[in-house]
């Protein structure tokens, strides 16, 4: 009886992280349906082994780790997302971005926020996975470098260097839309 209640309480607490898991999933796989399946399987796996979760530890990180491992085991090799040649981004950033068509900024409208979000998500999906994942975890998921490193099973220094390079790739794609203090001053 106590066990069932604990499981239910765990399920409810885990559901509070649905939006976060969805955010990570949509930046891991190509199709929205695949992302939804990935999140649903994550919950099924998490609930299957909820007894392994240490109460008081970071549930959000634990769930994200399960999601990432499931993705890596089931999607990564078969359906790896490659919109451009990853290696060109490694060797030569400008060449890499020449292959990605820059979209027109368009007039400002009431849908500006939505538009910007879509552009950020699109640009994020176009950069290689090794850069995309740390950005998704640290910038969207609010994870520390140490937590992101644990989820991705890599050293903290790797998270830092990939974040740095990934953000540069993203900024080059989004610079027209990102309002820096310098741009705000120039407008005034």
């Amino acid at each position, binding site marked *: 009886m106590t066990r069932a209640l604990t499981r239910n309480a765990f399920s409810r607490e885990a559901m509070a992280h649905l*939006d976060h898991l969805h955010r990570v999933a949509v930046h891991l796989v190509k199709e929205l349906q695949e992302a939804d399946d990935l999140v*649903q399987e994550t919950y*099924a796996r998490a609930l299957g082994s909820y007894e392994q979760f240490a109460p008081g530890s970071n549930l959000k990180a634990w769930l994200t780790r399960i999601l990432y491992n499931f993705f890596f085991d089931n999607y990564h090799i078969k359906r790896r997302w490659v919109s451009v040649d990853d290696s060109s981004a490694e060797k030569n950033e400008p060449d890499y971005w020449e292959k990605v068509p820059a979209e027109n900024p368009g007039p400002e409208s*009431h849908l500006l926020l939505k538009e910007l979000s879509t552009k950020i998500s699109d640009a994020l999906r176009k950069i290689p996975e090794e850069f995309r994942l740390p950005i998704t975890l640290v*910038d969207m*998921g609010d994870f520390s470098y140490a937590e992101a490193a644990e989820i991705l099973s890599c050293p903290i220094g790797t998270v*830092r260097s990939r974040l*740095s390079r990934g953000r*540069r790739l993203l*900024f080059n794609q989004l610079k027209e839309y990102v309002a820096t203090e310098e741009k705000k001053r120039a407008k005034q």
Partner: protein
Amino acid sequence: MKCEDARELITALVDEELSEAERFSIEGHLKDCLRCRFVYEEEQALKREIRAAGFRLSASPELRSKILSDRRIFPRPERSSGSWTERILPAWPFLRPALVLALGVLIILPLFHLMRTPSEPISLAALEIQKKIIGGEMSVRKTSNLDELRKWQIRAVNGEFAPVAYDLSSMNVQPVGGVVQEVNGRKMLVTVYAGKGLSFTCFTFLGTEEDAPKIASIFIDPDKKMKFYSFSKDGFSAVLHREGKVICILVSNMSGDELLALVRAKVQPS
């Protein structure tokens, strides 16, 4: 320090992930290097936008209900193998009259409830008010001066509470007026915003999350530790949240998902 060596330190400075020594070193470099200061500003701005884009991205109601109905995740409670009479009737015979009395109360109470004139939940009444304002059936005090409107509304409720205000200027949406309405004996402060084909009406009143309608979908924001109730009716979307003792409902002609994302991005925990 060379600029290329500064890149990763700038990233970690933006993320507040530097040791004291590293921070000292990069801050020294930024004082002298205009180019790297720009890079730092760019990375800060980019991080801010990515984070905001993340907040605007939420799981669909379909995914939520798929997970909630997945029996691997939320299994049905197990039933005992006894007959239905064994499960329903208490084992001790002297408890049976109490059970009959309880069943009687359970049957009679809903009948009394049905005989009463149903009153509309305050949250759904807000949508009706929105419809009347848009249709011109209800007049509002026209003003673009939010401060003046706010003072007038606070006076109307004897200073008991203040209207929740939204800054929607980044969407070219401005306050255009307001009104004070009474629904089921409770006063509601109503502020109307408009611009660029969008309309928003913010309803503030004293209440609890119990005021959310039963049809609302509940979204829990673990970062803000807040609950948001999303519902819609007659082509209008609404999102309800609580700020201390007041309830705020933002109603709009935006889609439900967009409105929820907007409210979640704008609202800060009280």
